């Protein structure tokens, strides 16, 4: 009798446990079913507008910040931003992306007008009724609605002034620029050269292009320093130039006697600043650029007046500023 009762209770408990498991797995199946439906339909609400943001390089730290700034407005405005760009800096591919965006009839295009070859496409887009905003690099002669970004000429001047001040007006300078063709790099170099010429006797002995990559920047800087050993100051106009230049300086054992000024206060560059490998950085505001470009685009969509040019702030950051920020 006792045994029988034991058998009964064991069977009953096992039964309820297995029933429990059935219910558990059933609910699990239902849950994954719900997830499948969610993933399958992918029915996001159709945004009011959808804009294309075409940058210089897709996975570039600087451009990712621009893209992030733009993306962060998606929810606020109920819009979709397609952040696009070539894998490596390549104006031709960038133009293709612009053309594709035009043919895909997006509601608005925000593009970095790297050089004059972008003019016809920008004009074509505007002619087809797609408003275009230039970002980071302007194409003032095109029919673009407005420009948002750094005043690149002014940024170049700022760098030049800082260099004169820090080197007491006597130095031999080598420049590594992102690209000879790209308008913003041209403007930065131009601004730098102008201020140096106006205010000092500093001579610029070499200027090379890095295609905005660190490896080429390092290679060019090394060549430059080997060719002109008397260079004691370096100026880089694109984000990764600073890194490349310090690498070159280190490999030549000249880390300490070179004055290096670079662009963009990304984490990587800030580390170099902290370690005294770089002496100053020109700070741009990529996030604000991306963010405000969408604000402006929305203004255009709502037929509000926009100015011809919006400049974001630029400033010089040195190690002294860094400690202030850190504190």
């Amino acid at each position: 009798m006792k045994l029988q009762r034991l058998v009964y209770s064991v069977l009953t408990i096992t039964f309820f446990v297995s029933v429990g498991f059935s219910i558990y797995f059933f609910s699990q199946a239902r849950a994954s079913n719900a997830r499948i439906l969610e993933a399958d339909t992918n029915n996001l609400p159709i945004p009011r507008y959808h804009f294309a943001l075409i940058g210089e390089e897709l996975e570039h730290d600087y451009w990712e910040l621009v893209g992030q700034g733009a993306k962060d407005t998606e929810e606020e405005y109920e819009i979709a931003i397609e952040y696009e760009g070539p894998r490596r800096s390549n104006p031709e591919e960038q133009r293709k992306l612009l053309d594709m965006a035009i043919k895909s009839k997006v509601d608005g295009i925000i593009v970095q007008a790297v050089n004059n070859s972008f003019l016809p496409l920008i004009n074509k887009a505007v002619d087809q009724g797609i408003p275009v905003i230039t970002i980071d690099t302007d194409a003032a002669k095109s029919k673009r609605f407005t420009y948002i970004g750094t005043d690149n000429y002014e940024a170049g001047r700022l760098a030049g002034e800082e260099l004169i001040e820090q080197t007491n007006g006597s130095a031999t300078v080598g420049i590594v620029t992102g690209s000879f063709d790209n308008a913003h790099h041209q403007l930065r170099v131009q601004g730098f050269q102008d201020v140096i010429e106006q205010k000092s006797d500093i001579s610029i002995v070499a200027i090379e292009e890095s295609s905005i990559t660190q490896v080429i920047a390092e290679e060019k800087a090394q060549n430059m320093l080997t060719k002109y050993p008397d260079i004691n100051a370096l100026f880089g106009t694109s984000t990764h130039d600073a890194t490349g230049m310090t690498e070159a300086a280190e490999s030549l054992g000249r880390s300490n006697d070179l004055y290096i000024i670079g662009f963009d206060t990304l984490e990587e560059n800030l580390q170099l600043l902290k370690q005294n490998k770089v002496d100053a950085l020109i700070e741009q505001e990529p996030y604000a650029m991306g963010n405000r470009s969408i604000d402006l685009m929305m203004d255009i969509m709502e037929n509000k007046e926009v100015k011809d040019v919006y400049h974001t702030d630029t400033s010089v950051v040195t190690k002294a500023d860094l400690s202030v920020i850190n504190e």
Partner: protein
Amino acid sequence: MNKIRTKLLVYFVAILVLMIALFFIQHQNSQRIIDLHNQRLDKYFLLNEITQQTDQTYQSLQIYVNETTEENHQYFQENYQEFKRLQHKFDSTATHSVDNQNYMNLLSSFIDLMNNTTDAVDAENIDQSSHYYNEAGTTASYIHEKTLELINNELTAYEKIVSLENQRMQNIRNMSTAVFLSVILLSILFALWFSNGITRTINKLTNAAKEIATGNYQINDIFVSRKDELRLLTDTFNQMKFNVVEAIREMKEKARLNQLLKEMELQSLQNQMNPHFLFNTLNTISKTAYIEGAEQTNELISSTSKLLRYNIGNLDKETYLKDEVNVVNEYFFIQQTRFGDRVSFRQYIDQQCLSIPMPRLTLQPLVENAFIHGIENMATSGEIRLNIYQKQQTIMIEIIDNGKGMSQEKVNRLLGDGQSADGTQQKSGHSTGIGLRNVIDYICSIVEAPLRLNQESE
């Protein structure tokens, strides 16, 4: 009543339904996966078809631009219409997303450009036509690229869905296993419960039957909580046991009455020895008294002798009410002689009632009873009345005395157990010896019905 058959039927149907449900879920599940797969595949095929058709249409445009003939135009138009059909198909099947919208726009841009090209060709504007033609070419390459991108995206999404589907499949498989296990356990539990229920009831019945077989009828009724055929069986068994016990009780009762009757006969037989001698002697004395001229004595002895003869006569011999009344008269004559004016006897008798049969020795003991317990102790004017009359279908015999009445205790004792009544009753010399209790029992044994006896005592 829940029949055992119904129980089994319900159980099997439940199991069957569960199994079918499981099978259905499994089937639906696999069907869904197939559907999902087909849907995706259709989309890939469509995308592939679109790129192919883009190329073909573009080629036909090229032929038409190079050689503007009606035939080539026709060929271009065919392809163009096919392309439009595919575009429409894509529009109706694709979900709404930014990517799909871009793709759609790209396709329509391509269509626009082809239209522009043919318009320019028709207008023989070679500059325009070559410009649009080149644009169409780049757009075609864009379509290629975008298609690849779309397929890539779809595949990525599909991969995720497939992994989720697999997860779901695994869950459903686990669920099926668990349900299957539950069903098996339930079956075992059901079988145990069911068979135990039956054997337990049968065991109870067997034990009870054994008890009864050994002669013990004092067992309790068997009770089962089930409501099936076994309930019917146990109820019938209980009823049977009750009937047997009842029959035994009746048999015992009958045996007791027979015993009583025999005792009474034996008693009267015992009494017969002396009475015969006494009777003859009394007759002799009566005759002697008559000869000697003692008339009163003669009559008295004659009455006594009649009474005696009636008393010792055969009990089974049929007698009538009339005989009983005569005996009562004889008895009263004797008593009146004994007590003189202290007692009087009055009777009202409807002569028509006297012919009904009547058990012997029933009336006289009752009158005697009334005499002894009612009026014997009264100093003067004791009276006993005997009324016999017909009331509707019933013959009423009333024996009424005006005595002191009886205490309830005594009534109870008289009507109660015959034995105790006999035991306590002293045979007094002035009684003919047949007690009230005996009369009651005697009548009961004859009419075979419980006799209700109400004695009204004032």
